[in-house]
């Protein structure tokens, strides 16, 4: 009987939650646009490359060609369609960004939660470790790493960026944990003699889930900027349809900063990055309100 009541109440909670989500999304159409943008990017990265052949067709008589219906963002220095390169290049960028975000969040949350909940010696050791990690400047380290590591696959790239980025999340999660562990419901859970695993997994984590989810999305943008920046600087191996390499070739090969011909080639990957960031910002805005009822403007 008790289990039936519990299940019914959890099902109705879920219903209420999704109703709440829908309400929040509906209130600002921009949030819907954000979700659509992210779905669009996810589709682009997963199914987009299937629409193009492995070796994109080229027209050597139409290098840095203008924007036309056939080539909405013109062509590059090889006479290849720029839009096709943005689409095929999204796979590497988004996959590595996703890996980065996952590693950042999983590592950062695990270390932050454990450290904040356990306190004492573990906290000291883990936080000193985190502080040390935070003092290492990311970009110079990546530049050095790129001389020995070729970052051949998106997963490798994501792994390295993720391992470099978990520090801030760990610090933030720890401070949240420190604050939550003194709250009544945690005290009560402790008083009931519930296990540490239960308290962390069932009590603390769900409370922090929205915060962690937002951090994950923001990590995606950080990872995109970092890897595109590295490819733009030319320190990572060349891959023609990578967004960063496209920017590099547009500026240093096509003279996009000097003449208009290569400008669409420069703007296309920039616009993709801008749209992706916009989508993430809008979704984070919605999540903020979904998970924080005090922000609801009802």
């Amino acid at each position: 009987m008790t289990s039936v009541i519990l299940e019914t109440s959890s099902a109705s909670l879920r219903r209420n939650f999704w109703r709440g989500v829908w309400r929040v999304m509906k209130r600002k159409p921009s949030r819907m646009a954000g979700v659509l943008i992210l779905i669009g990017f996810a589709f682009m990265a997963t199914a987009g490359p299937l629409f193009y052949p492995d070796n994109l067709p080229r027209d050597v008589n139409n290098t840095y060609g203008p924007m036309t219906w056939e080539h909405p963002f013109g062509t590059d220095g090889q006479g290849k369609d720029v839009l096709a390169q943005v689409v095929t290049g999204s796979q590497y960028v988004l996959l590595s960004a996703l890996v980065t975000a996952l590693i950042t969040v999983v590592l950062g949350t695990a270390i932050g939660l454990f450290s904040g909940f356990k306190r004492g010696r573990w906290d000291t050791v883990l936080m000193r470790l985190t502080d040390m990690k935070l003092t290492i400047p990311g970009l110079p380290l990546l530049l050095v790493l790129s001389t020995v590591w070729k970052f051949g696959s998106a997963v490798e790239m994501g792994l390295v960026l993720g391992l470099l980025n978990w520090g801030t999340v760990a610090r933030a999660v720890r401070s949240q944990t420190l604050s939550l562990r003194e709250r009544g419901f945690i005290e009560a859970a402790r008083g009931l003699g519930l296990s540490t695993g239960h308290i962390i997994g069932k009590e603390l984590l769900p409370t922090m889930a929205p915060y962690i989810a937002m951090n994950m999305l923001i990590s995606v943008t950080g990872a995109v900027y970092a890897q595109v920046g590295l490819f733009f600087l030319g320190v990572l191996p060349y891959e023609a349809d990578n967004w960063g390499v496209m920017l590099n070739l547009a500026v240093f090969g096509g003279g996009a900063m000097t003449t208009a011909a290569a400008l669409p080639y420069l703007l296309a990957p920039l616009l993709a990055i801008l749209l992706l960031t916009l989508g993430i910002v809008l979704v984070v805005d919605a999540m903020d309100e979904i998970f924080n009822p005090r922000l609801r403007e009802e």
Partner: protein
Amino acid sequence: MKRLAAVVALLGIAAASACSSSGNTNKSASGGGSAVYTTIDGTKPGIDPNGPANPFAPKGNSFSGYNAMKLAWAKNHLTDPNQFYPGIAESWEVAPDNSSITIRLQPDNKWSDGKPVTAEDVKLSLAIAYTQGSTAFALQPGAAGAAAEVTVVDDKTVKVTQDMSNPSQTFARGVLDTAVVPAHVWSSVLPADIWDKIKAARGTDAAAEAARTEITELGKKIIAHNPGKDVSAGPYVLERVNPSAALLKKNPNFYNAANVAPDAVQLLNYTGNEQVWNYLKAGKLDSAPFVAVPADTMAQIKQTPGNVVVKGYSPVAVGLAFNQSKKPYDNVHVRRGLAYLINRAEVQKIASPEGGLPAVTTTGIHQKAAAEWLGAELNNLEPYAHDVAKAEAEFKAAGLTKKDGKWTLPDGKPWKVSMHAPAGFSDWLAAQENIKSQLIDNGVDAEVVTTADFPLYQTEMAEGKYDTGFWLIALGPAPYNIFQRIYGSANGWTNIAGKVTHNAPGKNGNWMGSAEEIEVEGLGKVNPGELTAKLNSVGAEEQKDLMLQLAKVANADLPVVQMWDYVNTQFQNHSRFTGFPGDDHDLLRQPHGVWIQLGMIKKKA
């Protein structure tokens, strides 16, 4: 919502700046009649305001042809490396057996501080050349074309003899291509017994080794030396430097000062090609040396009033070189197949539309020089014109098989042509990307791999880490230098004291790994490394014969597939000055200060 507004505002700014950058073009130059000649030094990107007036310092503010002078300026003639324009030397005489060169200095030349330029200045400069390891002043025992004795004949005459144990046809070039600095400013940097040390260093014992180390250390001291105020024997002397430009004023003591028209020269700072493009578009530069320019930018540069684009010979070409230690590149049919498969005209069109000519075939020689060296024989060589059927026949002859439209190795394993280039070499990268597309179109899997910078690229290449990579060849005009690029140390042959030895592939820098002896139709078995070494010492007629043999070997054996031959595309603005060298003039291969010092450049009336 505020975040959205901010993003939209940012988008607006980006769009506005994009529009303004595309609209802000073609500002015409004005200020005709100015006596300040504005240019850039193509060898010195990034002017350092704190750099010393030291011609040996990479970041120094001594600019070749302006306030830094050489004994003479090598013309880089198509076939004769020993032709020069006068510099510090007025004339020179090479002994009939090439055993010595007697140099006579300009009789009326003075340093900018009023002291005359003497033979002692030249002697000290030659001692400095030993510390910098110049070709004629190499310290390695047995080095080809090394100087043996330097004698001051009189105040204005110096005689340099060649060590005839391993003579070189380019000895005179090695001597005359030396920077000259004032002894009264620089003598304190070298010890008084420098010539004893140089003599000791040319031996083979332990004392010689110690002397060589000491001289090498002196070389570092020379590079770091700050001589203080610039003392120049060139047409200009350094007036001041700031981060945006170096200003040089006319040196009234220069021997040809009466014919030096610009009162001052301004060398603008640049750190990348884009800055040079902007200078050219604005019509700021009276001349600029070769710089890679995208087609659209080139069109805009040409539209600027007064701007003229001139083209000349550039003694260098680029080829796709193979590491024959790696399969399947050890098989000549694979190399030939690739040569047939790659459409070189397309590669050049994409990679170097303004600065190159597609290679007519692979000879190892620039096509302009090849026409001189080989004459009609050039047409008898296999042109390797783009021909997919011939490529497939060659691949089949090599035992490769085509499965599901993709070529695989004879053992059935997948084959991927891995091409390497240094990051930042945009023309090489564009070329390799195009080759990659061409190969994939025809069933050969390919990839382009970049290396962080050029020095690392060279190191890794020498270590045999790459399957294939771009390699500069045809470095003329000296015939030995031309073929040394493909049948020299990178391919296993070392030439010490006139003795040629061959290292096994993978050893002592032999990354190309050609066979020591190559069977060539019509020539039989030849050792191309030995033929190359002979180019150093034989007479002109025999040289011609050797060049033909080597071109045939390169054409048949293809250690590299010659892609395009560089064209020296330069820029001039005729609004303020006249008298510029035109298309194909050999002075296009000189620093532009040489045009001025020879009295060619005149103020526009």
